[in-house]
Each structure stands twice: as structure tokens, then as C-alpha cells.
């Protein structure tokens, strides 16, 4: 009897995916040369399995800002925001995020995962309710566990189903925090946000929108789906991450409620961890400037994903979303077919993501391709050609 026995089913699942080539899960990437190129198994590949939606990881200004902070302020803060880890730059970034939304309060967390963990576990507690979309990210479920609030789920992207669950709560719905995402990373689909807002208002509940995958992608200023839908004055909290469109590491929560600042006194994932390094904060601040004024980047990203979605549909693939977005999730009939597609694309010089149960909703086997503003028109041609080659071979 070993403490490790319980991991045997996971180990067996991992082994079932292993073949002669590189591992499809936690694929070793030997080096990264640019926002869209890297080396896997000795070969150069197009990176189409990252979350680098605006392609800012190699932006010269972002890299210079991070480098200058690294040299000027050191490699790390070595402490939490509550102790020695609150520098001027952390506060400045919070102010810049709050100003971007036109709201009074913002808090920076050390990772995107911790932003959800820190916000959800603190905003609600015993005697209160979290009402989650069933396809929510693990960080949302983990935040729920840490909160000790009663956690209910509603059917994915179904406002009527949410309405029924809130109705069951009666007047307690006023102590319920609803959580939806601006873009669901597995299927690449978006919520009917306005309908959710209407249900929230009908019951007097609260609404948090996790814009981890939609920040930088949607909205005139890139603030996410909430901005794109014209709903910034009707939601209570927006959570986001620095590790996707902002090309860094960290997360944030912003709110029109000034009292959000009180969360700093009680949020364990905020208090009991080291704050982001000076280089991370400096790079993120520069990337945020580029994101807010990045209409050209967004235009290129949208052009890329519109083209890829159209091509994939023309090839007869079923996609996880009818509305094109930066994540194209190709639904394949079984694990073997999905793995064959993943290997086929890699052989053609394209790195994508293989997603399989139980990480996926409804037991789906997915080949997930992420588009970036840094992909050139020619890159998208190559991605489409590689997928076409796979289709012909199948």
C-alpha cells in the first residue's frame, strides 16, 4: 500500500497516450524563438497551442520594460503584498487596470489561478452561495471549495437553467455570486452574457465574469466580452490573467464596488504568497498599454481566427463553437483519432493542444488550435494546409 497508488489510473491514462514521438500531454518544448515559433523534438514548429493571443511575449517594448525592472529592482520581491512585497509598480498596475475599466478598485494577484481562488474564496463564505456555470475552469471550482459557500451549478451557457436555480434560492439569491467566463477555453465558446445579466438583475444576485481568455481579444479597448457586449455598468466583478494576452504571469480582479479593496485583508491566496516580481509587473504594465491601444493587433487576431474557423468548417470539422474566436476546438470522435490528428499536425510542423476527458466537458476529445495576432497571413495558410493534409490522410 503506497500513498502513490491512487495515481495509478492517471499514470495509465498518460501511458495510453505515449507513442514513439513527443508526449502529447505536457509536451517538452525545447526552445521558443518568437511568439509563433519554437522547437519540439529537434524540429521548428508553428506555435498554435499557446494562449499568446496578442503575440506580445517577444514585443521589444515589453521585453525592454521587464529587463529594465529586473536590473533596477532585482529578480524578486521575496515577500507578500501584506509584508514587504508591495512596490509602487504593483499599486500603479492596479490603478491602471481600474482606470481602464473606469472603476474604483483593482487587486493584482500572483497568478490567474490565484485571482479566481482569491476572489471567490473571499467574496462569499458560509451562509452564502456560489452559482457556477458547469463548464467552469478548475480555478473557479477550487475557489468555491476554499470559500465554504454552498456551491450550485447550472447548465453550461443556459440562462434559463440559472434562472431556475436562483428561483429555488428565493430571497437568498441576493447572497449569491454567479460566475461565468467570457470565453470557455476548452470549446472556445462564449456565454450569452446579456441574458445572464438580466437573470442576475431579476434575482438581485451578483455577477463575476472571468475574462481570462477574452481580455485583450474582445471589446474596442480589449477589456473583454463584458465591454464588447456593452455591459460594463451591469456586472460586479471582472477577473483576468496576465498570462495570456498580457504575455506575462499574474492575475487581477476589478470592480465597480469600491469595497473590493477590503478583500486584501481577508483573501488568503492574496496574503500568503509572494507578490509578482518587478520584471513581471513592468512587462505587464507595458503589455497593458499595448493591449488598450491594440485595435490593429485585435484586427489581425480576428482576421486570423475568422479565416481558420471558415477553413476548418469547409473541411467538414465540427467545432466547439459556432462563433469564431481565438480558440478553435476541433471535436474528434475518439481519443485515438484526436491523438492521430495531434501527431499528424506536429509532423506537419504545427504544435496544437490535445484535450481529452476528464479535462474536457461532456467527455469530448479535442484538438485545440489557438490563434494569435502574431500569426501572419502566411502562418494561417500553413495551419490550414496542415489541417487539410490531415483531412486527406484520414
Amino acid at each position, binding site marked *: 500500500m503506497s500513498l502513490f497508488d491512487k495515481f495509478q489510473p492517471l499514470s495509465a491514462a498518460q501511458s495510453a497516450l505515449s507513442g514513439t514521438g513527443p508526449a502529447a500531454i505536457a509536451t517538452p518544448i525545447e526552445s521558443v524563438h518568437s511568439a509563433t515559433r519554437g522547437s519540439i523534438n529537434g524540429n521548428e514548429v508553428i506555435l498554435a497551442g499557446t494562449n499568446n493571443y496578442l503575440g506580445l511575449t517577444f514585443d521589444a517594448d515589453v521585453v525592454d520594460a521587464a529587463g529594465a525592472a529586473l536590473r533596477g529592482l532585482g529578480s524578486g520581491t521575496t515577500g507578500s503584498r501584506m509584508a514587504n512585497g508591495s512596490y509602487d509598480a504593483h499599486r500603479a498596475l492596479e490603478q491602471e487596470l481600474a482606470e481602464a475599466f473606469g472603476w474604483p478598485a483593482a487587486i493584482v494577484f500572483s497568478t490567474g489561478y490565484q485571482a479566481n481562488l482569491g476572489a471567490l474564496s473571499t467574496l462569499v463564505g458560509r451562509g452564502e452561495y456560489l452559482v*457556477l456555470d*458547469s463548464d467552469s475552469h478548475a480555478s473557479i*471550482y477550487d475557489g*468555491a*471549495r476554499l470559500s465554504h459557500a*454552498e*456551491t*450550485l*451549478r447550472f*447548465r453550461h451557457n443556459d440562462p434559463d*437553467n440559472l434562472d*431556475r*436555480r436562483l428561483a*429555488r*434560492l428565493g430571497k437568498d439569491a441576493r447572497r449569491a455570486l454567479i460566475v461565468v467566463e467570457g470565453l470557455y477555453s476548452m470549446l472556445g465558446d462564449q456565454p450569452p452574457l446579456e441574458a445572464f445579466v438580466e437573470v442576475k438583475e431579476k434575482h438581485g444576485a451578483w455577477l463575476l465574469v472571468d475574462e481570462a481568455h477574452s481580455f485583450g481579444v474582445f471589446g474596442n479597448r480589449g477589456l473583454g466580452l463584458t465591454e464588447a457586449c456593452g455591459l460594463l455598468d451591469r456586472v460586479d466583478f471582472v477577473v483576468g490573467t496576465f498570462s495570456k494576452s498580457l504575455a506575462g504571469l499574474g492575475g487581477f480582479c476589478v470592480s465597480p464596488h469600491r469595497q473590493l479593496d477590503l478583500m486584501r485583508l481577508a483573501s488568503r491566496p492574496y496574503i500568503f504568497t509572494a507578490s509578482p516580481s518587478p520584471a513581471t509587473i513592468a512587462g505587464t504594465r507595458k503589455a497593458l498599454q499595448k493591449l488598450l491601444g491594440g485595435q490593429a493587433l485585435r484586427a489581425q487576431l480576428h482576421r486570423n481566427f475568422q479565416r481558420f474557423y471558415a477553413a476548418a468548417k469547409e473541411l467538414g470539422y465540427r467545432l466547439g463553437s459556432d462563433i469564431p474566436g481565438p480558440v478553435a476546438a476541433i471535436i474528434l470522435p475518439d481519443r485515438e483519432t484526436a491523438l492521430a490528428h495531434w501527431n499528424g499536425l506536429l509532423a506537419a510542423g504545427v504544435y496544437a493542444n490535445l484535450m481529452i*476527458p*476528464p479535462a474536457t*466537458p*461532456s*467527455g469530448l476529445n479535442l484538438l485545440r488550435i489557438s490563434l494569435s495576432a502574431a500569426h501572419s497571413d502566411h502562418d494561417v495558410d500553413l495551419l490550414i494546409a496542415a489541417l487539410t493534409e490531415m483531412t486527406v490522410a484520414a
Partner: protein
Amino acid sequence: MEYPFLTDLRKQSEQAIQVALGRALPEQGDIDWQAALTGDVGLDSVQIMNLVMEIEDELDLSVPVEMLAEIQTLDQLAERLCHLQKERS
């Protein structure tokens, strides 16, 4: 002593489980109420949560996610549903 009221709630709970399980696993034969949800029935964690969501709609009640962690068998699930229905009434 058996209360007819509770027996009815138990029956409703079992019926809701049967309907939901029939949709999740159409090839499933007779239900073994002592079967472990993950091992014997063969559901993964996501499938269990989806099964419970079907049951919630069938019985028009909400099962808190944290309650699921304590439920190992179909019998325990039926018992919990029975209590939730009783609380509601």
C-alpha cells in the same frame, strides 16, 4: 418504523436516478444501488456532476457541489436526494 412519506420521497429519488442514469449510460442494465459511482458504475467526476444536474432538473432541487464529495454509492445519492426533498417540503 417506516414512514410512507419518506418511502415516497425515496421512490421519487430512485426514479430520478434511474432516468438520469439511463440517459448517461443507455446500455446500463439493472441498477445495483450499492455500486460505487466511480468504480462500479464507471462514471468519471465530470459525468457524476452531469448526472446530478439531470437529477436536479428532474426533481426541481439543487444539490450543492460539496455534498457530492461525500457520496460514494447510488444508494447514498438516493438517500441524500430524499433528505433534500424532505427539507424542501
